[in-house]
């Protein structure tokens, strides 16, 4: 085990490696962390702290552990992101040095490779929600430690290391189950490295993989049991993001998942455009070709093919395990197979591993190639990161300006009563980020990276009250049949128009209705028609 002295020595010797990658990452997202721009789930949590139990409702029982331990459960500007970045870089460094055991004399190159992986745009979605940014950025460090523990368990045949690995992985899955991708991807990469160095046979690979498989299965089993326990205690809801696939579904989905994993290298997504995907694909394809070409026998070739198959499957491992019958409309906007947030736990490690793999080959051409690709990736990543930051920033400002105007309109209404707690019915939303983004051809998905509004209608009270001198909104969205009056009926049935029309806002003694989009207006009308029937039957029959 490492003691404090050893840790200090490592930091002393390796600070340059860590700081180059850390600075590249910080630079790529500097406008974000310097300006404190938050996402649509953060409003309430910015004022009130995050409780340890805040994540239980969706089974994320460990999600807020670290943030409570280190940041007093608060979303703190700069620290929230920068500390997360540090943990993330530390994770990549530990993986390189202590899991893969890479020892390259040129420290600058190591820092370049780590920077190229760390700053990849897969990170962007994690930076949208401040309330989970810190934990999501920290899980890689935990997964890295779990992997190192498994490796130690394998070498020393120690149960202590084995159970340490299991416990760490269980905590990680309790925070964000999709982080499982990272564990699997890196475990497969480790097997690839083993086979590349010593041509071990199939059975030996299986034997070496066994501790990983057992830790994985145990952690997943423990997670499932925890879910059952939480649901039994009514602490957890059965939400879209905690449903898993059945065994038969796993077989059915296999082809789709493999296809999606491969397609993930090519498919343009917001902020993951060609200038990132092309070097990424070149890097991965070169790695695959070199790995296959260096097989010394037919059996080795087939073993390598099998390992590559596992690697590709592991890239979307969480999507493979999760249920397709999810209950949220969001899943069609942001399908698990192309969710950047989950890809964060797989693709950057492929970049890291492939760069090191090519550099460690004997051919100078491949060494040069890994160097050039890392530079290209870093430059592209910085551009993508800053582009994301700019779009996020401008979108956030413009939507906040819109919110100010909406609030002004409500409060200037002659019917508005001071110190009355209103129910806000916000019909629709007004996402504006896309107005500041130039998309490339055939980009897909990226709901949270680009399209999600900062104001979700069902949590209207959170942001309408945020900058107000007092809480003038008590709740959002629900129209109580008791409160319906003829003016409201007239407004919804005939007058109602979309913002910024003067007829987009209705205010009475208890309700304020704001119509922000046509979809919202139609939904409200539909909802109201149902309510209005009962209202008219009660009042006028």
């Amino acid at each position: 085990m490492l003691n404090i002295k050893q840790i200090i020595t490592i930091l002393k010797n390796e600070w340059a490696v860590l700081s180059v990658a850390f600075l590249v990452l910080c630079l790529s997202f500097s406008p974000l962390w310097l300006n404190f721009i938050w996402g649509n789930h953060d409003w309430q949590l910015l004022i009130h702290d995050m409780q340890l139990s805040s994540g239980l409702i969706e089974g994320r029982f460990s999600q807020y552990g670290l943030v409570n331990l280190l940041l007093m459960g608060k979303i703190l500007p700069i620290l929230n992101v920068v500390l997360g970045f540090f943990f993330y870089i530390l994770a990549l460094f530990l993986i390189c040095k202590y899991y893969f055991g890479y020892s390259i004399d040129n420290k600058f190159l190591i820092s370049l490779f780590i920077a190229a992986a760390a700053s990849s745009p897969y990170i962007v979605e994690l930076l949208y929600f401040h309330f989970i940014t810190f934990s999501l950025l920290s899980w890689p460090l935990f997964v890295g430690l779990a992997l190192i523990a498994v490796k130690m368990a394998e070498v020393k045949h120690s149960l202590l290391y084995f159970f340490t690995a299991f416990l760490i992985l269980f905590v990680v899955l309790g925070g964000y189950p999709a982080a499982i991708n990272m564990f699997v991807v890196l475990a497969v990469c480790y097997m690839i490295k083993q086979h590349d160095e010593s041509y071990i046979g199939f059975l030996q690979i299986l034997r070496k993989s066994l501790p990983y498989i057992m830790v994985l299965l145990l952690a997943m089993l423990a997670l499932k049991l925890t879910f059952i326990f939480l649901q039994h205690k009514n602490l957890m809801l059965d939400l879209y993001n905690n449903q898993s696939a059945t065994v038969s579904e796993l077989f059915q989905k296999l082809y789709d998942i493999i296809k999606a994993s491969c397609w993930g290298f090519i498919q343009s997504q917001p902020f993951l455009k060609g200038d990132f995907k092309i070097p990424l694909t070149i890097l991965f394809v070169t790695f695959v070709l070199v790995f296959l070409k260096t097989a010394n026998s037919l059996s080795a070739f087939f073993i390598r093919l099998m390992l590559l198959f596992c690697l590709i499957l592991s890239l979307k491992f969480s999507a493979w395990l999760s249920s397709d019958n999810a209950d949220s409309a969001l899943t069609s906007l942001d399908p698990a197979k192309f969710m950047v947030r989950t890809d964060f736990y797989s693709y950057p490690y492929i970049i890291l591993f492939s760069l090191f793999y090519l550099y460690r080959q004997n051919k100078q051409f491949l060494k040069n190639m890994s160097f050039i690709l890392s530079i290209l990736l870093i430059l592209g990543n910085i551009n993508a990161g800053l582009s994301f930051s700019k779009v996020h920033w401008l979108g956030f400002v413009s939507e906040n300006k819109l919110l100010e105007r909406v609030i002004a309109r409500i409060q200037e209404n002659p019917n508005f009563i001071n110190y009355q707690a209103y129910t806000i019915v916000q019909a629709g939303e007004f996402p504006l980020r896309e107005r500041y983004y130039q998309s490339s051809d055939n980009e897909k998905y990226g709901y949270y990276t680009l399209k999600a509004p900062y104001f979700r209608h069902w949590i209207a009270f959170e942001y309408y009250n945020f900058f107000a001198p007092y809480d003038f909104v008590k709740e959002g969205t629900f129209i109580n049949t008791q409160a319906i009056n003829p003016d409201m009926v007239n407004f919804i049935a005939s007058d109602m128009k979309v913002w910024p029309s003067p007829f987009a806002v209705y205010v009475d003694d208890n309700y304020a209705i704001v119509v922000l989009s046509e979809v919202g207006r139609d939904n409200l009308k539909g909802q109201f028609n149902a309510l209005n029937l009962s209202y008219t039957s009660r009042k006028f029959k």
Partner: protein
Amino acid sequence: MSDILKKLNLFPDKIDYRSWLISFLIINFAFLYHTLNFIWGNHDVKFVKEELLWSSGLFEGRFTQFIPYRLMMDGQILPILNNLVGFGFLTLALWLLAKYWNVKKSCLNYVLFISFFATQPYTLSWLYFSFITISCLLWTFLAVLGLYLAERVYSSSHKIALSFISISCFYLTLGGYPPVINMFLVCLGGKILIEYVFAKKEIKQLFVIYKYTIINILLAAILFKLSLKIFNPDNVYNLELEALNNWITKFFYVIKIAFNQFFIAVPFMEKEYKFFLAFISFIAICGVVSYSNTYRTKVVTVFLVFAVILSTALTTFLVVPHTEYVSRIDFYGFAFLYALFIGILLSFSPQIYRSLGIVAAVVLIVWNILNDYQALKIWQQGRDAEFQILEDLTSRIENNHKFDSAKKYRFYQVGDLSLRPNYYHGKYDYDDVFLLSIPYLAMWQGANLIEFYSSSSFINRETPLLPEDITSDVYKFFMNEAKPWPHKNSVYLNDHVIIIIYNQVGLDEFRAKLQSLLPFINK
């Protein structure tokens, strides 16, 4: 690569690295507030939201202007990186210039030389427009690189290759911002002066060495003019050249301007600052002249100093528009003259001059940084104030009962408002629009501005305000009832048009235009 750099005496050593890094940090500190707050200017509205195209500068003959943006950032203006990359190029340029001018090599000298130049408020003028910051700071590097390589042509066996690269450097910079030609001549003149006075080379010998530089600059200028013929830019103000028959009268006018520059105060470079710089320049000139031994060399030295000072106003001499006392033009000319004097003081043999150079540079760097921060505070305050008006205007339009966001309106902005000057109480002889008075809410950017933060796109971009939009009602409104912002009649909206009025001057001009339309208005 390292072999080539070594051959060209460009391979950096520890002093180079250290001075480069320290200077870069000082420069970034001087403009940190700008870097962090993404204070873009009035030309940037559309480009911040969208992107710069390869062809964006063609209409005004700036055919290379956006190559750096396209190559490095996919045409985007990116916060923070925009300044960092620009300052990176500027630091490199000044480091190379220090080598070119043989500034005595030490970390302190290099740091002082680089930081003094880069922190001058002249640099601010390239920060106002984010869409050209990188290009225009890159040009300084390419210009010095071109000069440096051209100097090497004389002693190199690769004359054609070096000349080709040198011409390319000059050509690219001219294609991006032609007034950079001031810099070519000031830096070359400075080099010849230094070589003549300190290296004791004869004029004839200097001509033999630097004829390649002159030829390369001329060839690049010819290529530039030919390119303009090919690209056929619009007939814009900044391409108008002075007619040959005006050259003599213009020459004397330019002499006056060249020397007046020492004393004319502009915003954020006030009298005291200018006089201090003039004093330092005077000491440097006296030092240079006294360093010459004979009467003849003293005369030649004075002539060379005179020529260098004159070349700071070369653009003003060549073009019709008034470019005198304009900070962005002076950045490529007069600012380099100051740098030359500081460089000379730092490199002088007598200790008294060197000490004076160091003290002056330190004082000036601190003074520059204070001026920069004052400017940036005022920029931010003015910008916030102007954008608050834009926000209020958006509310006014949205709250108008006639407004329908689904429609496309023809839009016109009458006049503009510049609020930065409201926050500045310094005294100056000559206003510099880029440093102070140009409005963020520029009249010609009205449509882009009003839609920048708005929630919908309601402006008809294809058709401007048409004569037929001026009905008798519109005419009467503008002749009798319209008032500038913030009056309630400062926003006019009907089913087809939105017109906003910012100031009385604009309104008077608009009324004059309307009167010219009077015979055609359907009453």
